[in-house]
């Protein structure tokens, strides 16, 4: 039984100036191979113009159990959204 190639997370930036987006993962022995494999697996139809490959083991993720502690505080701060402030109809460009 040989050692499995490490897992990499692949991010692709499309042509339209958007940020790199996670598209999936793959196995590769090293970084150059990860880029080559990502080209073959995730960009067969012009999906992107740039690839990032990150070792999966290097990613720190928030824990599902911390969801409330992390994200609930935003719920009662609706004033962060512009719709919180009603504006008079006759005032324009706001």
């Amino acid at each position: 039984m040989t050692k499995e190639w490490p897992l990499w997370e692949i991010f692709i930036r499309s042509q339209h100036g958007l940020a790199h987006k996670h598209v999936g993962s793959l196995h590769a022995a090293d970084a150059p191979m990860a880029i080559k494999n990502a080209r073959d697996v995730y960009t067969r139809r012009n999906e992107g113009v740039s690839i990032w490959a990150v070792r999966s083991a290097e990613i720190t993720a928030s824990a599902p159990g911390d969801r409330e502690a992390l994200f609930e505080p935003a719920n009662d701060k609706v004033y962060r959204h512009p719709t919180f402030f009603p504006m008079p109809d006759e005032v324009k460009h706001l």
Partner: protein
Amino acid sequence: MYAQMVDTGVKAVAAAADMSPEEQAFQARIDADIKIEPKDWMPEAYRKTLVRQISQHAHSEIVGMLPEGNWITRAPSLSRKAILMAKVQDEGGHGLYLYAAAETLGVSRDRMIEDLHAGRAKYSSIFNYPTLTWADVGAIGWLVDGAAIMNQIPLCRCSFGPYARAMVRVCKEESFHQRQGYAIMIALAQGTAEQKAMAQDALNRWWWPSVMMFGPPDAESVHSAQSAAWKIKIMSNDELRQRFIDQTVPQADYLGLTVPDPDLKWNALQQRYDFGAIDWNEFYEVIKGNGPCNRERLATRVKAWEDGAWVREAAMAHAEKQAARAAKAA
């Protein structure tokens, strides 16, 4: 389908009263169409069933490369050859998306491949039939990929996030496969008498295996019911099969080919086709390993894996050496 008769490990669909609070909360999330992600709590049976289903689906994509790969060197033109290579490469890609989705559940890629090679994991029955003529490549794209699309589109809404996302990606690419197959069938059906006969022969041999692909009627299957409750099976085998037949028969009519089912007829009242009895014996024999190509397909996969072992080892040794040198230089 690409995943057939997936065992859920349960004897009855779990009732809310028998569930732990965690299980109840889990089922409530599924009922509310909230996606389950790999790090979320999930019942062990859900995790195991998904590993079986997704790995079986992945194995089907990879083994599915073999019947079509058989014709790459003999495709009738350079253009047909380039298209077929792109199609077979896509199937490899689909297998990789799916293996990656299964790995998020904590099973290793090597483990899944070992399970396939040892006969512990299955792949779809359909890929145990031989591709005897070029028309079979057309029939596979048209019928087999057509059947796969029927199954995979609902799975884009399944409860497990990584599986649903892989399905979205697969479905985007799949309609190219079906159209390239139908284009081959059109060329043959509108060609010489011999070419049309070849297309008819391919339809004769692939029709029933394609209809069987959806699996046995699942009305009484406890596994299907549990998988439906977990939203990892969205439509029943019979529903999918009926849809497939209803959409495919008119396509055969357009080609001027005859579906090899004397009992097939339009039911105006029900607005669907009635069709003849399916030989489930044949299906179970293929599932058990006694189809025309079971042994050859598995032997080909095992040989490819074993022949490639030195490449995988060498690449890893090279990467480790480079990393060690970089660490020393720093």
